[in-house]
């Protein structure tokens, strides 16, 4: 299972929640340069994971956002074109979903990262597709 290293994941999560690099550095007691480097590495790792996932399943990438940790892709399931939404969940790795049927924990995760302002599946789909 793909996971970011613990320290890197903590920094990435704080950044994804909208915290500035200087504030992250202060909160974690590290230098700002270390935060900047870790965030760059985290983004590269997330791109790698999402691109890799799309390649393995032959999904066509529509959007990869390493800042908030999600991917939108086009895939095929039972000879039908389907939308695939994948999210990086801290501590759990990447979870992918066909269509717009998001479980509650994904909606909570999206609210937590500021992707949407309330737990609404339609709103989440709209934001991911915009």
């Amino acid at each position, binding site marked *: 299972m793909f*996971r970011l*290293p613990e320290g890197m994941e903590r920094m990435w999560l704080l950044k994804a929640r909208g915290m500035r690099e200087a504030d992250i550095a202060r909160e974690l007691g590290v230098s700002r340069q270390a935060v900047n480097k870790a965030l*760059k590495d985290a983004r590269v*790792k997330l*791109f*790698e994971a999402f*691109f890799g996932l799309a390649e393995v399943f032959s999904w066509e*990438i529509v*959007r990869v956002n*390493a800042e908030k940790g999600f991917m939108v892709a086009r895939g095929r399931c039972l000879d039908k074109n389907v939308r695939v939404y994948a999210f990086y969940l801290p501590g759990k790795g990447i979870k992918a979903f066909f269509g717009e049927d998001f479980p509650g924990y994904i909606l909570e995760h999206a609210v937590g990262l500021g992707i949407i302002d309330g737990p609404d599946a339609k709103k989440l789909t709209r934001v991911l597709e915009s």
Partner: protein
Amino acid sequence: MHLTMFDHPTMLVPFILLAASFVLGGKVGWGLLALSFWLVVYISLTTNTKIEGDQVVIRIGKPLPLATKKVPLDEIVEVIKMPSASGIRLIEQFQRPWVPVGSFATGILMGALFLHRGEPYGVLWIYISLISLLNYVFRPAEKKGRIGASLAISVVSALVLLYLGHPEFTLGIALYGVFDIMFANENYGQDAIIIRTERERIVLLGDSTSTEAFIREIQSLLANAGGSNVPSS
């Protein structure tokens, strides 16, 4: 066809030269007009985007470089691929819509200037500026609205020219209007790749072959960068 960066101020230069050529007139005007057309061809044929080393390099013009932009791969936070079929309302995507806004403003100002001088073909400048803007405002999926707007602008422009006593220009508007409606109805559109860093958003336009090749290249490079530089958990 190459991947072209469309929201760069350099792309606006031909429009400004074209406007200046009409304002100045005479030999200087003809020179600027020729330079403007040459620039349009030069920019469209020689602008390209490549991944060189660990950065995306966008060059406008080659061998004579008019502008170069470099984006380090590790600064990229988002990559979006938009095929024409899913619709692109491009004006929303540009961080700095130099070309749509610049060409529109140039066209409207020139049109107003000519009309002020009593030259009726100012209507043609305004007409073409408005029609060109439609390509950036509507998604290809919003065909009906796009065609309706094109029809309305063409009819109003033709009526204005008839009112001004220049029916010969209305034929030009009718032909251009029909061409524009056919163009909109075909769902024609380029693919777009949008690269977002923390500071800016870059829109690259090209055909599907070049956009797919670019995505494949960026995918392979980012994968390699992650494998070699980042400690795994």
